[in-house]
């Protein structure tokens, strides 16, 4: 049941201290809303990524509560302020089945 979920984190834009870049995060999660039925007519239980947290150098910068209206694959893009020393952007997620994941990218100035 808990096959690995492919996730991707990309940082785009000019990396300049004090500037802002865009972090794009996506996860190939089925995001089952709980409203759909399978071929045999059984309801597919709800299993979505409900929490996404983004950290910059281990400091929480964004926390998102996701609802069933998020697509599969789930996609989120948000700005990150570039600190003078650069650092690491990390995104962690958790779904309804308890599965968790983590992706990180280095910010090099």
């Amino acid at each position, binding site marked *: 049941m808990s096959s690995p979920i492919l996730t991707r984190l990309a940082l785009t834009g000019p990396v300049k201290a004090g500037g802002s870049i*865009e972090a794009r995060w996506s996860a190939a999660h089925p995001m089952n809303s709980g409203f*759909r039925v399978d071929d045999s007519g059984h309801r597919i239980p709800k299993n979505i990524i409900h929490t996404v947290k983004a950290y910059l150098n281990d400091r929480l910068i*964004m926390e*998102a509560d996701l609802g*069933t209206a998020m697509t599969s694959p789930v996609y989120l893009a948000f700005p990150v302020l570039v600190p003078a020393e650069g650092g690491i952007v990390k995104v962690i997620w958790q779904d309804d089945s308890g599965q968790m994941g983590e992706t990180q990218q280095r910010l090099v100035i």
Partner: protein
Amino acid sequence: MRRSSLAWALGTCLLAPHTLVLSKPLNELSSDGIELVFPRLADTGNAVPFEAQITAPSGLHLKALKVILPENPNPVALHLKIMGQPAQYTLKTRLRLAASQSVWLVAVFNDGSERAHHAPTVITSTACLDDS
């Protein structure tokens, strides 16, 4: 069995109560400083790209963003809590829509004030029953 499940799913899509906890009706809030990019027409509700650009009033910064789809079974699509103190924010995502509706974006600022803006879209097939 299959028929009853389908009826259940349809009922959940169409009859969900539109209950939300908000300080004011959304349409009484100012929409200044909020730009939404959302297609006026979408072929399916399975993945509709959504972009919001928010500029806080001078002296304030953003604390939270909510994306609300009033006609969806679960109307709150996204609740973003923002920890830095940004005066500007650009959020991009993709949404699943149960029906043609207006997407609402609510921005909450550090003094507790809220602003909201909406963008309508028409979709031609629902994301509730299709299994793709």
